[in-house]
């Protein structure tokens, strides 16, 4: 009886020891990964560029990744304009040819934009056609209202 009890206790102790060693190793591992998550990314994976999913997807006439109108010339705009700023900055602005040309000149003079060569015409046409200024009167109507039931 006494021997069996001692054996049972020994088994229990070795179990406990095993579990605590496992826990310590596990927690140290977690700590290291937490400090340096890059460890979890295998070098092999990094050598291959991640696929840019849906980067050319167009939905309802809009290029999904940037939000630009997917009309003739939009790839040229992405390639030349989004190197330095978000497409959002294009999308929210409006203007005629002169306005967009003067912005390009300003970016070339002060912001390090390169000579656009033959692409300048493509870009200016695209912008002035798809992002032209509309006269809204002294106050536009409210638009894009999402109606909802107001709970009391």
């Amino acid at each position, binding site marked *: 009886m006494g021997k069996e009890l001692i054996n049972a206790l020994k088994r229990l102790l070795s179990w406990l020891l095993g579990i605590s060693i496992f826990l310590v190793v596990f927690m140290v591992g977690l700590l290291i990964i937490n400090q340096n998550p890059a460890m979890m990314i295998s070098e092999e994976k990094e050598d291959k560029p991640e696929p840019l999913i849906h980067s050319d997807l167009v939905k309802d006439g809009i290029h999904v990744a940037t939000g630009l109108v997917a009309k003739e010339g939009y790839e040229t705009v992405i390639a030349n304009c989004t190197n330095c700023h978000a497409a959002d900055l294009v999308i929210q602005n409006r203007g005629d040819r002169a306005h967009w040309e003067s912005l390009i000149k300003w970016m070339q003079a002060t912001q390090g934009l390169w000579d656009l060569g033959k692409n300048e015409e493509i870009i200016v046409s695209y912008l002035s056609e798809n992002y032209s200024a509309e006269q*809204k009167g002294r106050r536009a109507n409210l638009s894009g209202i999402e109606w909802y039931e107001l709970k009391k």
Partner: protein
Amino acid sequence: MPNSKSKSKNNSGRRRFIRNTSLAAFSAALGAEIVFGKNMPKDYVPVAFKADDPYQLFNKNKELIVLNNKPWNLESRPHLLDDKITPEEKMFIRNNGLIPKEINVRNWELVVDGEAVKAKKIFSLADLKSKFNHYTYQLTLECGGNGRSEFYPPASGNQWKTGAVSCANWTGVRLKDVLEDVGVTDAAVYIGYHSADTHLSGDPNKEPISRGVPIFKALQEETLLAFAMNGKDIPLAHGYPLRLVAGGFPASASGKWLKRISVRDIVHDGAKMAAPSYSVPCKPVAPGEKVANEDMCIIESMPVKSLITYPKTGAMIGSGDSLEVRGHAWAGELEVSEMEVSIDFGETWQKCQLEKPVNRLAWQHFNVQLKFPKDGYYEVWAKATDSNGVGQPMVVPGWNPKGYLNNACHRIAVKVGGNG
């Protein structure tokens, strides 16, 4: 420094991916050649491919609108600004340059120099906090270009709608106490700030923005060198660990990541101090008129304005129901003395209950119970009037080349009965 360590670690995998990816691969993904791509700096990622989530990065409510990601510009929305004290999650971000990457609070110093100080003096952050009394004020900060999107002809730049305004609690030491300690001469006319953010070009010799305020504003009791916002360290995107806060002036005067204050014997001549930046024509001009820089005047006090923060636009209520409307009103250096709303496009106006500001330069809260005469579509228009008797225009105010200071009445849409 909040979160920056873990963020940079998490990004390292992505950065390595970028380094290993050739321009050709970018071009293939874009379906267009990156023309003159050889001019791009090494390791440069076209912004279209940046995966940073600003909401997570800056602890922001998902309903904020991202206007730009380089530099970061996010605006809030009227119904998000219903809190009496704006919390971090709902506060707009307007940056001119890149947020500083390395911030070491232990070594952080504020230099006070310039032509109009008796001698240059340097304070550590601990010096500032221990040497001077602390004050907390609730201060309205509004971007000078808030409402720009409504001007015609359009001004270029971020097309802010109504959400580039906040009113948080700022805690710090008074700039006037610090200037007194340094010793300012009679020659002082302006102060200019210098900050740790970096120019978009990466050129360390260029400052993205270095503005300031006239000396009268610098010496006001509410002008703070702030180290806390809403009782905690200032969030990184809002100027951690130290920023100038000058409520009532365009928020661009409240420099973030503050490193140096120069007491000048001239109007400060830092980046974005000169016209046309943060300037409007000295005399009224016709829409689209060219204005010479010398005919532009620097914006000081912001104009009177208000915002309906409850309910959110688009509310449908039952026939005969009354509607509670509430919001905030502010008036730059002045106080708002009257607040009215109209449900008939300005034919008649109803007075709102208007609270006093908790301190000078804090926004004021208003509320009103509305009844509608019959079912149908309504707009609730809100109009504040300042202590000089100047009210908000219902139309877009006088045009200016850069689209500043649009303080036209805010309005929301409401449908009564029938659910449209």
